[in-house]
């Protein structure tokens, strides 16, 4: 009971603090502190509820237990991270987004492909990973290559749709200007349409950054070497070692957020001119 009461009081206090902080003038400090407080609040609440309601650790371990496991398993977590993120997700992300980008350009370049490829792009998009994964494992083997392939399939569509939409985003006068210069297709592309498409392209990149991680992890459920975040998660769930599962989830959350954050930073630098960045 005490645990629960403390949890609720703590939560209320932090909520109030955050409201105060975010009303204040925005600066670097609040930009960092507010989400941190929010996160800490959730963790404390979680810890309190787990103890308060005596939730079985095979269902939901307390954050403290997860932290302990995390600290004790760094070598394993590192190996899994390299296997899943660096080898699987990152390479798939680069290949998939690259391929989608090139396809979008091809689609944009040729009305024929536009009419022919786009519907089919939609179609491929929807090939569910759960179905693709076993097939791709069959084709590309057990190791990270098949995970990368799953990621490629997964990120392809969001990236394609966003890029295609983005390439339409320049306005008429901007395009007319290019015409008056008698600019060739590639000149208009690099000087106008791509810069104008950047907000959309980064949308795609951001969405794909999280998809890539999910894809790589999920793909490991369908066959893998005995390392990797997905392998560890499914294995440890079977062993009811939920603290290890959550330690891996923590890694995934940290890595995924960092990945997203880096892309958001690049976005900020590249699309500084867009109204959404100039609030």
């Amino acid at each position, binding site marked *: 009971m005490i645990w629960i009461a403390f949890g609720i009081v703590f939560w209320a206090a932090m909520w109030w603090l955050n409201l105060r902080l975010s009303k204040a003038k925005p600066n670097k400090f609040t930009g960092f502190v507010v*989400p941190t407080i929010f996160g800490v609040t959730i963790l404390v609440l979680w810890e309190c509820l787990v103890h308060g309601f005596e939730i079985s650790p095979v269902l939901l371990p307390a954050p403290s237990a997860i932290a302990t496991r995390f600290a004790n398993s760094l070598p394993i977590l590192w190996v899994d991270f390299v296997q899943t993120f660096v080898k699987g997700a990152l390479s798939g992300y680069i290949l998939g987004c690259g391929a989608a980008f090139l396809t979008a350009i091809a689609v944009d370049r040729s009305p024929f492909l536009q*009419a022919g490829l786009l519907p089919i792009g939609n179609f491929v998009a929807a090939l569910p990973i759960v179905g693709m994964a076993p097939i791709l494992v069959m084709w590309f083997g057990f190791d990270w290559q098949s995970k990368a392939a799953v990621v490629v399939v997964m990120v392809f569509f969001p990236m394609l749709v966003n890029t295609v939409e983005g390439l339409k985003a320049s306005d008429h006068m901007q395009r007319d200007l290019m015409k008056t210069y008698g600019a060739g297709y590639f000149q208009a592309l690099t000087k106008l349409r791509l810069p104008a498409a950047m907000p959309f392209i980064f949308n795609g990149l951001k969405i794909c950054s999280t998809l890539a991680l999910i894809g790589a992890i999920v793909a490991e459920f369908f066959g893998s070497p005995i390392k990797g975040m997905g392998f560890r998660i499914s294995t440890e769930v079977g062993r009811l070692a939920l603290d290890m599962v959550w330690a891996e989830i923590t890694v995934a959350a940290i890595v995924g957020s960092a990945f*997203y954050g880096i892309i958001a930073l690049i976005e900020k630098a590249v699309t500084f001119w867009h109204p959404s960045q100039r609030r």
Partner: protein
Amino acid sequence: MSSAGFISRFAPVLTIIAIIIAVWYASAVALNAPWAQDKAKRAGVTLSFSELVSDTWAQEKPKLPAPHQVATEIYNTTVMKKITSKRSLIWHGWITLSATLLGFALGTGLGILLAVGIVHSRAMDLSVMPWVIASQTIPILAVAPMIIVVLNAVGISGLLPKAMISMYLSFFPVVVGMVKGLRSPSAMQLDQMRTWSTPKSTVFWKLRLPSAMPYLFTSLKIGMAASLVGAIVGELPTGAVAGLGARLLAGSYYGQTIQIWSALISAAILAAVLVALIGLIQRITLQRMGMLR
């Protein structure tokens, strides 16, 4: 649409499909040949090229089934079966579709609500957005069983748990897209609203939302695809009893590639139709907003 317009619109699609099918057949030969050779070697015979080709296109459990094998399977499990039959793909498709649509509706709703909150409240922007991102990095297949167990414990089962997973996957593209879209009005347009001292809600309805339309539809398309994936993923930990996901799993479990592919293609057709539907709504909306020229 005139018939000429019709042809010019669909000729490219058909051409591309024809190319894909040709490549598909060729890949089927390439991928299935080793197995055919292997079998032949063990049987002590050598295959002529045409024997090889016809074998690769007719294996029972091919590495890659030939298009006609998949087509036949789909035909057999749709047209030839009563739609109430458990062996009817339409029945399974419907089960998945209902979870997809519910999940999509929930996900889009949640996504838009979050985006609205994030755009309007700095507190939300600062505190929620990072966690929304973090939430997406949690591998859904890992937590799905826990979600299902928990929901089960509170007595929720059936469609809703699957729809929740759908929602979980589909709300994110909507949040990201809508946050960007709702922030896309130009400084001048926002200033204009300020001079009229327009309440935030009105700015939202009359300026932010219309400006966000291109972003919204892009997000919806991705959200729809994601939500179908979610519904299918959600079918695994719910006991994989029925639905296209269950078909995929069962097919995979028993090594029935033809069944996998037919479920896969059906799912893709379903998604393509849904995405095309959104595309249609997009066209109509933008047309009415005078944004298509």
